[in-house]
């Protein structure tokens, strides 16, 4: 297996606040990586750095063998990085289908029938087909989250970044979403998933990393990481040397 994404000492701070402190890790082709950490730890900022909406202060980002550190968000999107947002941000004045088409035509570079076919196929997979002609601004929370996923998938990503997509959903909704993400993973897409709903995360990911104060504090097998003293400290406030 070769690495699809490599972060090499990526750092970013806003004044005294460090959101990424020399982050280094690799994501293997086809791997699903879970990310946990307390609020404000820099998890979403890490996604902004990877997608290119936030320029890094230093460090290198390599995606699919290419140095993308200086590339714009639009270019990175076209080369296969897609994300969903924690707070869904659809184009509310466009229909669900048009939202999907933007990703398929602009990001994946498809045209005409081919783009339409991909969108319909993915809308079916994400269970939004019946709402294809609804304005995105009129969707419920679950459907907005599904639309986030739809748009990311219509970009035909090599790397999919999911930002707390299970948050705020009911148990049943969460289960159906986890199944969809499992299917996506099974189709060979590499995934990085930030999630506070840990059981949903553990049902999918192969490996887990923990981020705190912009630093990578633990990584490895999900179960081992969850039981590690770093995670216990961060989440339960237990002092290791008390």
């Amino acid at each position, binding site marked *: 297996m070769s690495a699809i994404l490599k972060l090499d000492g990526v750092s970013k701070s806003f004044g005294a606040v460090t959101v990424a402190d020399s982050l280094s890790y690799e994501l293997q082709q086809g791997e699903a990586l879970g990310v946990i950490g307390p609020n404000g730890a820099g998890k979403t900022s890490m996604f902004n750095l990877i997608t290119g909406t936030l320029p890094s202060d230093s460090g290198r980002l390599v995606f699919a063998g290419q140095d993308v550190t200086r590339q714009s968000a639009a270019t990175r999107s076209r080369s296969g990085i897609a994300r969903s*947002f924690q707070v869904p941000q659809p184009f509310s004045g466009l229909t669900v289908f048009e939202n999907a088409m933007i990703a398929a035509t602009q990001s994946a570079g498809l045209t005409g029938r081919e783009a339409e076919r991909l969108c319909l196929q993915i809308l079916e997979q994400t269970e939004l087909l019946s709402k294809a002609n609804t304005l995105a601004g*009129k969707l419920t929370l679950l459907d907005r989250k599904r639309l986030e996923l739809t748009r990311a998938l219509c970009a035909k990503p090599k790397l999919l970044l999911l930002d707390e997509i299970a948050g705020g959903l009911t148990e049943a909704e969460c289960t159906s979403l986890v199944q969809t993400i499992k299917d996506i993973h099974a189709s060979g897409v590499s995934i990085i998933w930030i999630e506070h709903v840990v059981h949903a995360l553990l049902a999918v990911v192969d490996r887990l990393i923990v981020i705190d104060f912009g630093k990578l504090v633990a990584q490895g097998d999900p179960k081992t990481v969850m039981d590690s003293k770093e995670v216990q400290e961060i989440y339960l406030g237990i002092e290791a040397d008390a």
Partner: protein
Amino acid sequence: MEWLNAVVQGTLLGGLYALFAAGLSLIFGVMRLVNIAHGDLIVMAAYLGLTATVVLGIHPLVALIVVIPAMAGIGYVLQRGILNRTLGDDLLPPLLVTFGLSVIIQNALLEGYTADPQKMNAGALETASLSVGGLSLGILPVLTFAVAVAVIAGLQWMFYHTALGRAFRAVSDNQDIAQLMGLNKRHIFGLAMALALAVTAIAGIFLGIRTSFDPSIGGGRLIFGFEAVIIGGLGNLWGTLAGGVILGVAQTVGAKIDPGWQVLSGHIAFLLILAVRPQGLFPRVSG
């Protein structure tokens, strides 16, 4: 009958105002840019048309073949070279820059073409008329109105049925997310300005055939365009056509009462509508 005639003539005049306004409406809709130089760009298009007719010896309407691509090219370069740099969270920089641009265009036209009023010669088209139910309609105003309807229908179709229109709406909706979807907003804005100035080219040619023009009249055309956009409601192109018609009718009816009241009555109608319905008559219903 005289009053009916005034209303019909005003409606046709409204077509010209809608052409003035369509480009403004499009630019504001896509990138929230208020283009103060719009009127001067219309006048510039008229001068380009004049030059084309004189140099190439062609009819003004044939000159559209040259002027439309020329203005579209200018629009793209202007947007990517200057206006994109002014866009951001603050509305003031684009206002100031386009105001400066307005001054520059006016003075450049003054240098190049002098302050003498010019007019394009469209031959028989200028005086031809047809008689409908006792009213005498000029072919030129009828043609202008028909072109305005066609332009607005075309823009409307483009917005809702083409990939480019979808990209315009996506960028207008949320620029940052559009970037993440692989849309280059600088390029999209460039295309929007190119399209807006292509429409402006049509407006400029019809203006130049209808009346004489000189470098100083841009400001007045800008006001008429603005009034049409605001009366119709922001972001609604058919509303813009309706706004143009209302403005045109108010002017011709005002002129019927007293010839000195033509422009004033248009402004009064605008103020009345603004007071009663500040959002315009047909604001776009957004989701």
